[in-house]
C-alpha cells in the first residue's frame, strides 16, 4: 500500500519542486493550473504509465481474466455459466474445505493477536526484552515451507521422533508407565487361549493337578526380562500352569507345546476365576510357571487380565484426521506470534505514559490499567494485526500443504490449496480453479478495504 502511494509522490516531487509535501492523494488528474503548479495531464500520464502498465499486466488483467475463465469448463472452450460456482458449494469435499477456512479465520487471528499482545506487554517489563523479542520473532525469518517441515516432525506420531508426543508420553509415563508385555497375544487357533476384552482366558476350565498351558506370541524374545529362563511345565497336585512365549527363534517349535528353546514369561498376573468371580491371584515365576496355594478343589478358568498387556500411552495422533487443523493452526501461531508481538510492542511504546501513570495514581489495579487504558489505546494497532492475520489465514497454503500427510489432506484442505490442486495438481480444471480464486478474492476483499481505509484515515 505504502509503496503505491510513494510512487506518484516521488515522481511529482521530481517533476516540479512546488508539489513537494502536498497531500498524498494522487492529484495529477485535477491540475489547478498549468505551469509551476504541476505537470500537465499528459505529462502526468507518462509518469504514471510504468506503474499503470505493471499494475494492469500483473494485477488487473489476471483478475479480469480469472473472472472470465471461471465461467468456462476445464478445457476453456465451453461456456458453463455459474456451474463452477455451484460446484464449489455442492461438492462435499469443497464444503469441508470451506469449513476449515472458517475455523482458521475464527480461531487463528484471535489467538495470534492475543498471544502477541501478551508477549508485548510482558516483554515491556523484563530486562532482556530485546533478546526475548528476537527469539520470538525468529520464526518469521524461516520460510513457511521450512516451518511446515519442522512441524511435520514435531507432530510425528512416534515419540522417538515427534517432540510433541515425546513430551506428552514422558509426562504420561510418570503417572502410568507400561507394564508387562504389550503386544503379546494368544495364537489364532482353537487350541490356544481365547482373547476376551483384552484379557487372555483358557478355553477349558482347569482342575487341580491338571496344569494349564497359556502360550502367547507376538512378542520379540529380546523384550523378555533378563531373568526369564526356559519355560517349565508345572507338575504337582495344586491348580497351576505355565505362561510362556510359544515362539522358538528361527521357527520350528511345536505350536501349543513347551519346547526346549522357549522361555517363560515372568511377572504375569494370573487370576483363577470360578463362575465369573476371581477366587485367587498369583504371579508367574522366572520360568513362567504359577501355582495357586490353598485353592479349594473345583473347576477354574485361568485368566491373564488386560493389565498384563497394556501398552504405554502412545501419544496423540496430531496428524490424524481429527486434530490436523488445530495442529496446523499451532504451527501458524508459532510463525506469526512474533510478528504480532513486534507490531504491538511498537504500538505499546507509543502510548502516552502519563495516562497510565494517572490511572495508577487514581488507584487502578494493573489489570484495570491493562483493560481500560492499554487495550483501548492500542486498539488501532490490534485491529491492523488482526485484519492482517485474517488475510493471512484466508490465504494459508504452504503450512497445510507440507504438514498434513497425503492421507489427511482432504480433512486439512483449505481454499487456496484446493484452488492450486484443482488447477494444476492433476485435475487441470482451471475453470473451477479460477472460480475458487475469485471466491477467495471476494472473501479477502472486505478486509483489504478495511485495511486501506485505515491507512487513509491515518494519513489524513
Amino acid at each position, binding site marked *: 500500500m505504502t509503496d503505491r502511494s510513494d510512487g506518484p509522490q516521488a515522481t511529482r516531487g521530481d517533476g516540479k519542486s512546488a508539489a513537494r509535501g502536498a497531500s498524498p492523494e494522487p492529484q495529477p488528474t485535477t491540475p489547478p493550473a498549468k505551469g509551476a503548479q504541476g505537470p500537465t495531464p499528459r505529462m502526468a500520464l507518462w509518469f504514471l504509465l510504468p506503474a499503470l502498465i505493471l499494475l494492469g499486466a500483473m494485477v488487473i488483467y489476471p483478475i479480469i481474466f480469472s473472472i472470465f475463465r471461471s465461467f468456462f469448463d476445464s478445457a476453456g472452450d465451453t461456456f458453463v455459466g455459474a456451474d463452477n460456482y455451484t460446484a464449489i458449494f455442492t461438492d462435499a*469435499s469443497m464444503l469441508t474445505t470451506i469449513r476449515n477456512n472458517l475455523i482458521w479465520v475464527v480461531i487463528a487471528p484471535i489467538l495470534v493477536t492475543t498471544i502477541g499482545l501478551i508477549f508485548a506487554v510482558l516483554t515491556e517489563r523484563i530486562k532482556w526484552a530485546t533478546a526475548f523479542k528476537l527469539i520470538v520473532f525468529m520464526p518469521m525469518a524461516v520460510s513457511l515451507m521450512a516451518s511446515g517441515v519442522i512441524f511435520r516432525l514435531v507432530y510425528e506420531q*512416534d515419540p522417538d521422533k515427534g517432540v510433541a508426543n515425546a513430551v506428552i508420553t514422558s509426562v504420561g509415563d510418570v503417572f502410568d508407565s507400561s507394564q508387562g508385555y504389550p503386544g503379546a497375544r494368544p495364537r489364532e487357533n482353537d487350541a490356544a487361549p481365547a482373547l476376551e476384552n483384552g484379557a487372555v482366558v483358557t478355553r477349558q476350565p482347569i482342575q487341580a493337578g491338571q496344569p494349564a498351558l497359556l502360550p502367547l506370541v507376538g512378542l520379540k524374545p529380546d523384550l523378555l526380562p533378563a531373568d526369564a529362563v526356559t519355560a517349565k511345565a508345572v507338575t504337582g497336585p495344586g491348580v497351576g500352569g505355565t505362561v510362556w512365549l510359544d515362539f522358538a*527363534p*528361527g521357527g*520350528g517349535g511345536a505350536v501349543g507345546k513347551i519346547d526346549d528353546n522357549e522361555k517363560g514369561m515372568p511377572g504375569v498376573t494370573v487370576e483363577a476365576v470360578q463362575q465369573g468371580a476371581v477366587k485367587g491371584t498369583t504371579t508367574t515365576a522366572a520360568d513362567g510357571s504359577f501355582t495357586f496355594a490353598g485353592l479349594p478343589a473345583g473347576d477354574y478358568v485361568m485368566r491373564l487380565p488386560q493389565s498384563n498387556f497394556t501398552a504405554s500411552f502412545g501419544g496423540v495422533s496430531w496428524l490424524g484426521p481429527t486434530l490436523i487443523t488445530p495442529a496446523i493452526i499451532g504451527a501458524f501461531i508459532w510463525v506469526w506470534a512474533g510478528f504480532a508481538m513486534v507490531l504491538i510492542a511498537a504500538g505499546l511504546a507509543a502510548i502516552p505514559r502519563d495516562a497510565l501513570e494517572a490511572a495508577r495514581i487514581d488507584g487502578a489495579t494493573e489489570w484495570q490499567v491493562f483493560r481500560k487504558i492499554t487495550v483501548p489505546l492500542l486498539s488501532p494497532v490490534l485491529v491492523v494485526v488482526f485484519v492482517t492475520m485474517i488475510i493471512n489465514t484466508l490465504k494459508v497454503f504452504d503450512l497445510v500443504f507440507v504438514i498434513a*500427510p497425503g*492421507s489427511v489432506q482432504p480433512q486439512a484442505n483449505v481454499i487456496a490449496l484446493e484452488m492450486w*490442486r484443482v488447477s494444476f495438481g492433476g485435475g487441470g480444471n482451471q475453470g473451477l480453479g479460477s472460480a475458487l480464486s475469485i471466491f477467495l478474492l471476494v472473501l479477502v476483499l472486505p478486509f483489504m478495504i478495511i485495511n486501506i481505509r485505515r491507512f487513509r484515515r491515518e494519513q489524513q
Partner: protein
Amino acid sequence: MRKAKALAVVAGLSIVTAACGGADPAEPAPAANGASSAPAAKTLEGVTLEVAAKWTGEEQTNFEAVLKAFQDKTGAKVTYASTGEDTGAYLGPRIQGGNPPDIAILPQPGLVQQYAEQKALKPLASEVQAEIDKNYTPYWKELGSADGQVYGVLVKAAHKSLIWYRAPAFEEAGVQPPTDWATLLTAAQTVADSGTPPFSFCGASGWTLTDLFENVYLSTAGPENYDKLSKHEIPWTDASVTTALEKMAEITGKKEFVLGGSSTALQTEFPACVTKVYGEKKAAMIIEADFVAASASESGAKVGEDAKFFPFPKAGETEPVVLGGDIAVALKESKGAMALLQYLASAEGGAVWAKLPGYLSPNRNVPATTYPSPVTQQLAQTIIDAGESVRYDMSDLAPSAFGGTDGKGEWKYLQDFLRDPSDIKGIQEKLESEATKAWKK
C-alpha cells in the same frame, strides 16, 4: 532435412566420407584420416537433436551414456535437457511456443494421449514401428498409441509387482519367501507371531496403495478386466473390484499385520516406510517397486543380502506383473529423431542401457543376462516371463484427477480403505462416483 544434409556435406569435407549418401553402404570410403575406425557409415553426421526427460543424477548420466553410444554410431549430436519433476509443465510452454525438443520422454501414457490430441506428436516412421513389433508385446505398442496411430516407444520400465523383505526378520521367524497368496498370509502371521509386524505401509503416499490394489486386481480379475477397469469400461462397483478389495483387506485389515496400526501407516510417506523396515528394523515386508532398492541401501541394508524381494504372489489366477515406465515420443519431424527412437526401441540400444545400473527394459529381446547384478537379472526375467499378461500401472493410465492427486480419487479412497476396511461397498461407490467425474462418462 535439406539443411541437415547440407550441414553433413560441410562436415564431410575434411574427412571424405559418404555422409550425404545416407543409406548407401557400398561407399564407406575409408578416409585417410584417423576417422576410419567407424564400422558403418555415420548416416547422421552433422544432425543435432535435443532430448528432454525428467532424469537427473545417475539416471541422467546413464541415459547420456546411451545417447553417446547412439552418437558414436550415427554421428549425430544429441543434447540432453532435464525437464524437472513435472514434465508436463516443462513441455507445455515449449510446445505452445513452437520450440519443442526433438524427442521427449514422458513419464505417463496419459501425456501421450494429451499431446496427440493437441497434434504435438509426430507419428512413428515405419522402421521404428517395425522395431517395436519385433521387440515389444502389442500391449506396449497400444500404450504408446492414440487413435490408432503409434507415437511412442516405452523405453524404461519400473517393476511394481514386488514384495521386499528383510531377510533377518524372515530368518528369526523361520519363514520362507511365500509363493502364493495363502502362503503369504501364513508367512505374515508367523512373522507377526514372532513379534515383528509383517508389513510397513506407506499410507500417506497414495500411489503405493494403488500399486498394491493393481497387483491384487490384475491377479484376481485377470488382464482383460484390468484393461476394462483402466479405461473405466466396467464400473468400480463391479464384483471383481469387491473381490480384490476383500483380498487386500486380508493383509491391510489385520491390526497385527500393519506396523503401528493404520493411523501410523497413513502418516508414513514413501521412503520413510522403507526406512522403518531396513533402517529401524521394525517391520519385515514392504510392498513396492524395484526402486525400493535405492532407499533400502540408503537405510544401510545390503540389497540382495538383507534386502531381498519375491514376486508379488498371485492372489487369483494370474501371476501379476505391473510395470510403470517412460515413453519416448517425437515432437519434431526429423530423420534424426526417428533414428534415435528406432535405436532406443532396438535390442541393441536396450542392451547398452541394460548394462548400466538402475535400469530395466520392457524390451523382450534384451536378454536378462545383460544386466549387471543378479537382482536386476531376476527382475528382468519376471518381465520377460510374464509376456502378454504384463500390464501398465492402472492409476497412471487414469486421468490424474482420479489416479494421481493427493486427497482425491483413488488415492483418497484407498487411504480411507486402509483406515477402515469394513465398508467395501461404500468405498466402491465413492470410487465409482469420482471415476465418473474424472472420465466424464
